[in-house]
């Protein structure tokens, strides 16, 4: 190997090393984005708790949604509950900021009702178009939070009511 060749390869090897370190670090930075947001989501759970508990104690003439839920279960007729839930949650979760909501009831891990928003997930997933790869660098993403509440039916069955919301951060 000639003197000139060894000098050039030395320089190129250093530059290559610098590029490798930079790429490695860029990946590290990208992967750590979610860690910073974790604590904010946990504190925001209180907000979902408020929405769920108010939903259950919403007054309906002489009863509440809680009572309607129990009656719906025993009559196996959820139409009124569904209409009411959609009226309430479609008002709370407007389409732009918080497009996703889902409310469900389970007894022994078996769902006895589930209602959700008409939400198109495709808007918030990465585009299939390879030319749109830059979307990965945007700040907007859908953060989901859920809150659960246990209620006891008259025959001592324990039901779990869960409200899930998805908001753009």
């Amino acid at each position: 190997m000639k003197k000139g060749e060894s000098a050039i390869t030395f320089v190129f090897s250093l530059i290559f090393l610098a590029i490798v370190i930079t790429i490695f670090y860029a990946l590290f930075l990208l992967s750590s984005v979610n860690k910073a947001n974790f604590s904010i989501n946990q504190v925001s759970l209180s907000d979902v708790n408020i929405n769920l508990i108010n939903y259950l104690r919403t007054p309906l003439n002489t009863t509440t949604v809680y009572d309607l839920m129990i009656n719906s279960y025993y009559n196996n007729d959820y139409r009124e509950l569904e209409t009411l839930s959609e009226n309430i949650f479609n008002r709370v979760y407007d389409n732009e900021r918080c497009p996703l909501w889902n409310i469900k009831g389970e007894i022994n891990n078996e769902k006895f009702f589930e209602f959700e928003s008409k939400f198109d997930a495709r808007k918030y997933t990465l585009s299939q178009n390879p030319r749109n790869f830059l979307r990965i660098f945007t700040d907007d993403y859908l953060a989901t939070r859920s809150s659960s509440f246990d209620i006891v039916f008259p025959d001592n069955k324990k039901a779990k009511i869960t409200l899930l919301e998805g908001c753009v951060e």
Partner: protein
Amino acid sequence: MNKKAQFETSHELIIWIPRIIALVIVAGIVFFLITLPVKQSFEIDKLQETILRQRFLYSENCLAHNDGKVNSGIIDKSKFNQKNLDKCFEANDKIGVNLNLITDKIETINLNQKIAEKLDFCFDKKHFTCTNYTYYVLIQDEKKLESGLLNVAMIKIK
């Protein structure tokens, strides 16, 4: 006169120049990579705003209805006024809040009006941190309990 030796020395120096430049670049990148994450301070503005906006619904001094026990999430309609909210939430000169209580009509209260007016500039994430959340609330108005929405928009100057 040692021309051959002089030629060899200057030739060696010329070869060393790119090496030194490359070494300096690598050293600079290494220092940069180490100091970059260390100098970054952790941002807590959004966390702070989340905790502050919950005060309106959790604290009986603000809006929470109290009938012997504090009912978080149920708003006492008589507490939704400028004087009461200014007292329970003394916003510093960097935070502004816009509250909208929505029933069959919309009632609006601004805390720290000068800053709250800047909510339209929330797209400028470099200078402002903004949060906006709508709660589903129950409103106790004398003997009547009705449902409504409470929208809390908060802005903080960075």
